């Protein structure tokens, strides 16, 4: 009998014998977001991890500014910046092993890139040449998901399937504070807990769902508290503290691997930019609020610790800067090229085999394209 069958078995319960089915106390999140940087515990953190995180955060910030610049040059249709959230996204990528799966939302291109995905492949959705610019199975990164929270049940199903097959695979699903109001968030967490699926949910609470602040989104004590209702632990962590997020996620991944079931992690962070380049954040928040977060910037927090420990020398700084600029230059150059488009691709992957009706429609488009080519040829 499997774990699932034991948990699912019907157990008669006489009415007077009521008691909580599980003790809620161990599931409760800490009262304050968990922090490492700026505390005594930071001194014990491995210096290689600090330096690696710092390098990736600086590259990540540069990736965000470069992608935003590409929208102004018309090379990206839209870009939802994750500036301010780099610590959460990069820690998410660092917490996963090669065989694990990442389930990102549209704001999580940085997590995908930090996991090793080619930045151009991560951006085809936002450039508009194809919805998913990479093979999800090859990278174990699910398609960037736009309908909020709808990818969370996929993470649960995939993790559940992997466990049924006896594979050591954990799924990490990313969602925002707004996404926690969606029905799929609830259903995914419930299924994950009932099935004890090896999945970790990371909520990046960046304060806003486009313009709507968290206070209008939920009346919960914290988003991490929602875990208790599903019977899984909730962890509250400072989302700008890369070391803390990495530690909490790594713990949750270990727990999932060991058969301990799912964890909900709320990373408290802040969206420094507008929702996207098409949004105007001055309509719903004050500059003073944004400025207040600058002192708690993820790169600033990390550099304070590195400075304290004498690790932020000019050699490291210039190496990190050069790496970030090289990435940005490569991204700029490749995004400035015109993507190769074949309109006939529209019909290629609707079904495994084209239906008769789609073959007819493809033939019509082909004829239109040939007529266009002829017209251009005649005009030359």
């Amino acid at each position, binding site marked *: 009998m*499997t774990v*699932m*069958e034991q948990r*699912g078995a*019907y157990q008669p319960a006489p009415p007077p014998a009521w008691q909580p089915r599980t003790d809620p106390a161990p599931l409760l999140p800490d009262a304050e977001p968990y922090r490492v940087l700026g505390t005594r515990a930071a001194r014990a953190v491995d210096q290689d991890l600090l330096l690696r995180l710092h390098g990736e955060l600086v590259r990540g910030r540069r990736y965000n500014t470069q992608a935003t610049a590409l929208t102004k040059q018309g090379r990206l249709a839209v870009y939802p910046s994750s500036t301010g959230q780099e610590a959460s996204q990069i820690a998410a990528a660092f917490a996963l092993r090669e065989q694990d799966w990442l389930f990102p939302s549209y704001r999580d291109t940085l997590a995908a890139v930090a996991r090793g995905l080619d930045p151009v492949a991560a951006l085809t959705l936002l450039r508009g040449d*194809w*919805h*998913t610019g*990479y*093979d*999800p*199975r*090859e990278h174990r990164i*699910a*398609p960037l998901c736009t*309908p909020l929270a*709808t990818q*969370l*049940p*996929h*993470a*649960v*199903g*995939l*993790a*559940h*399937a*992997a466990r*049924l*097959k006896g594979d050591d695979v954990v*799924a990490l699903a990313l969602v925002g504070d707004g996404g926690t109001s969606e*029905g*799929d968030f609830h*259903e*995914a967490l*419930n*299924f994950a807990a*009932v099935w004890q699926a090896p999945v970790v949910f990371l909520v990046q609470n960046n304060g806003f769902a486009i313009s709507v602040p968290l206070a209008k989104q939920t009346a919960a004590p914290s988003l991490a508290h929602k875990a208790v209702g599903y019977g899984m632990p909730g962890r509250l962590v400072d989302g700008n503290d890369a070391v803390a997020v990495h530690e909490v996620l790594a713990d949750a991944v270990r727990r999932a691997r060991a058969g301990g079931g799912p964890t909900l992690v709320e990373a408290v962070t802040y969206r420094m930019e507008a929702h996207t380049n098409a949004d105007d954040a001055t309509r719903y928040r004050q500059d003073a609020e944004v400025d207040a977060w600058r002192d708690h910037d993820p790169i600033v927090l990390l550099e304070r610790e590195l400075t304290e420990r004498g690790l932020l020398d000019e050699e490291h700084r210039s190496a990190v800067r050069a790496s970030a600029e090289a990435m940005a230059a490569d991204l700029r150059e490749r995004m400035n090229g015109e993507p190769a488009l074949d309109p006939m*691709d529209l019909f*290629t*992957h*609707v*079904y*495994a085999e084209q*239906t*008769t*009706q789609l073959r007819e429609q493809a033939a019509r488009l082909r004829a239109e394209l040939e007529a266009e080519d002829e017209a251009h040829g005649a005009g030359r």
Partner: protein
Amino acid sequence: MTTVAVKPATMGQALGRALRDAMADDPTVHVLGEDVGTLGGVFRVTDGLAAEFGETRCTDTPLAEAGILGTAVGMAMYGLRPVVEMQFDAFAYPAFEQLISHVARMRNRTRGGLALPLTIRVPYGGGIGGVEHHSDSSEAYYMATPGLYVVTPATVADAYGLLRAAIASDDPVVFLEPKRLYWSKADWNPDAPTAVDPIGRAVVRRAGRSATLLTYGPSVPVCLEAAEAARAEGWDLEVVDLRSLVPFDDETVDASVRRTGRAVVVHESGGFGGPGGEIAARVTERCFHHLEAPVLRVAGFDIPYPPPMLERHHLPGVDRILDAVARLQWEAGS
């Protein structure tokens, strides 16, 4: 020579046998849904599967349709072949976002990288005295979503063969089960299931020369009954069982209508925006010069599904079909 044990079986039993055989043949086939395990489903289609294959292969899920379909998507992403049961037509609506935004387009958005071989079983249609929200004909919603196959059996043999084909398909299939045919019986040998055409082939259930009735699922037996009754009026009606709404078998339909010159589409779904509009338009576009009369539709009324004591007035019956046949301009061309 071996004797073949042919005995009466219901459509529900044939569907259950199809699930069982698919699970026995392929360990990646998993059944999940509400009450499908211990109970065997509210229509008992999954009866015995949990006992035979264990609860990890036939799983009682929490009561949440989007969660059922959403987790099935993840399972299919990892190489399993899930078969989900939506308990009733109208209970499938919470899963529509998963169906439309993910199931139908995952292959397309990933350029074939993530195909989803999953089957979504949906009991549909009326005629069983179901109270509100238990009798919808939801096929038009599914038909309007590119990337899905939409299949519905009308016979016991097809129930088995089409469900096996659906589970074997590498594309997602919405498998619509006509509720009022669950208890329909036919002589059927479960040990030598009928060979079935691949998904996408219609079949002529009754050959005739006067006019073609184009129909599917629960309306097929009604049309066959109408065709028998029509003999008294001197009409020899052909009945085409579409079996697959997507992909649509234009070839079989066109051949029949070109032969008879007249066509009536019959279904329970409402007429406005219903499948019959698409079918009538296709037939008119493709067979115009063979037609002696406009293609007519006999459909459910354009009303919310009625309460059970009134549903007989809503569902297309023999008389309504014969009235339509009578309006096929018999005097004009002949």
